[in-house]
């Protein structure tokens, strides 16, 4: 256990982060948009949970809700059994130290007028850790932890490569030894060869510090590679959830199956995704019906619930949860 962690995770609480029935609606020019609908999920201690879905699925809204950048309309978001709202009202500093984030755009997340050394030290200064001498020492350690050359300490962000900038962001997030790291599309803005380096770094951090992660991405292979458990989101809610290998190797929900076939192309297995219109998401029944190859009548009138089909593997689909129907569809 690394020293300096502000919240030593209580042994009695099994889940670190727990969302139950969370709702969030945004008011836009074109009327209200329900970004998240009755979303429930759990992140355990030291566990990497991958949240996968397309843009507009609400996955980034989940990150913002957990980070307190947005507030839920309904439902509860609890960290160590306590509402995030309460944390932020009463002990914001402790919550911020325990929950950190890495965002999608490595350069935009860094203040362009500050040098690398300043940026990495910032969280330590904010939370009054150490004096200026011990902080300089800690900055060197952190830069070494994320494999950044110490000579970069006096650079400005625009003098870095995309991968280096993202390492600076990760070093900032690690500075406070958080218990949970929220990663919102941390590699999608990077070159392919740099993505692998950042993913390896995140794996290493998870392994060496047993740090829990909520890893959000639109790419199933990326999520699968890192996650102990995967939650698939569609139209604001979870449609499938299960162990990392299970969800991708034995997908049960037709949307997950679509993701798998879209991701299998490099290996030669050409899937035929259906080219339908994205905006046509119905407001009753299963939201996936217009794109679903196996929809039955019931799907258009009644929304299925998230049912456990096998140990720890659940799916929100009438067809998948009915063995007879599943056999019929093949």
């Amino acid at each position: 256990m690394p020293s300096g962690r502000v919240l030593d995770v209580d042994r009695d609480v099994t889940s670190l982060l727990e969302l139950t029935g969370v709702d969030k609606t945004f008011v836009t020019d074109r009327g209200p948009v329900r970004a998240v609908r009755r979303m429930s999920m759990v992140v355990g201690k030291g566990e990497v949970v991958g949240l996968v879905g397309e843009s507009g699925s609400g996955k980034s809204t989940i990150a913002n809700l957990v980070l307190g950048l947005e507030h839920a309309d309904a439902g509860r978001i609890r960290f160590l059994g306590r509402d995030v709202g309460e944390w932020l009202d009463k002990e914001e500093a402790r919550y911020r130290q325990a929950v950190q984030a890495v965002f999608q755009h490595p350069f935009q997340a860094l203040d362009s007028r500050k040098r690398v050394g300043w940026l990495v030290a910032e969280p330590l200064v904010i939370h009054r850790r150490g004096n200026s001498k011990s902080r300089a020492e800690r900055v060197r350690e952190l830069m070494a932890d994320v494999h950044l050359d110490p000579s970069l300490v006096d650079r400005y962000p625009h003098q870095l490569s995309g991968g280096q900038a993202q390492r600076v962001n990760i070093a900032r997030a690690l500075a406070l030894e958080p218990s949970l790291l929220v990663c919102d599309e941390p590699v999608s803005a990077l070159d392919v060869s740099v993505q692998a380096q950042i993913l390896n770094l995140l794996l290493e951090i998870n392994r060496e510090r047993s740090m829990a992660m909520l890893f959000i991405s639109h790419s199933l292979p990326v999520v699968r590679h890192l996650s102990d458990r995967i939650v698939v989101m569609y139209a604001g809610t979870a449609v499938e959830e299960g162990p990392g290998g299970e969800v991708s190797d034995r997908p049960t929900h037709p949307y997950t199956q679509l993701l798998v076939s879209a991701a299998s192309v490099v290996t030669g297995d050409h899937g035929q995704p259906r080219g339908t219109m994205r905006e046509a998401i119905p407001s009753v029944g299963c939201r996936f019906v217009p794109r679903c190859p196996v929809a039955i009548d019931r799907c258009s009138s009644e929304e299925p619930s998230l049912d456990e089909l096998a140990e720890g593997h659940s799916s929100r689909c009438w067809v998948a949860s009915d063995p007879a129907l599943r056999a019929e569809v093949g």
Partner: protein
Amino acid sequence: MVEDLTVTYPGAGRPAVKGVSLEIESGRTLAVVGESGSGKTTLALALAGLLDRRARRRASRLEINGENLLAARRRRWRQLRRTDISFIFQSPINSWNPTRTMIAQVRDAMSAAGHAGRMPELLDLLGRVGFEDPERRLADLPHQLSGGMLQRVSIAVAVIIEPALLIADEPTSALDSTVQSEILAILAELRSEADLAMLIISHDLSVVARVADDVMVLYGGKVVEQGAQAAVLGSAVHPYTRGLLDSVPRLDRDRKTPLPSMEPGHLPAAGCPFAPRCRLVVDDCRRAEPELIPVDATLAACPPAASSTLIAT
């Protein structure tokens, strides 16, 4: 087609593109793959006559549709871009004027290309590529449509004016993976129907796998490997191409294990551009720039990889 193209920007030590030759027959798709700084965008701009005024371009041949364009003036390039060269950009929202309706902009593009009378055909085509109710939705402003929808319109317009060359610069990297595969499927289908040559630029090999007949891998402005799609993706020879293929998470890979990744490195002043990052590097690599030589089914600019492949087989 272009032969021995070199582009240098003022103040840059190395040319952005160096000695690149390529030829795309109509009906075929060439994918150019490379990371930022590889010169792939400069190559595309050179082929569309869109290079910055300050850039120096040298080539021994530059032809589109059999027309020699080495000495073509800006005005001729403008004409070509209206009628013979279509461009699909990375960011769908930035390719459209935000203050005008889609239909007005589409009409302008069509009449500039001399195909004003083919609007009904375009609407048909849009319907076929999953753009439902095109007549009503095109009355919207660009920001009212999703990225996938905008990209469908860009593609439909780019294809229907029957250009000789269609250049798609990262056409899907701003989109989600499921939308990405829809757009790629549409691109591949429309390209095979229209008899045009397509150049697709991407940093993502999985994109290439779906649409390209041939693949060219650029690194530091140089072609390091090229060949038929299946050959490059299936039995790549150059260590950089291999590295790219190996570093991508895949569904059939072990989870939670480190991905083989290439360490970052600078571009050297001389020799093979990839040498500082290369596993197979030998002294010769730092001295002379390797030429493309046939190895297996591809052409690769890497003598050490070539000799080890030959020994292995």
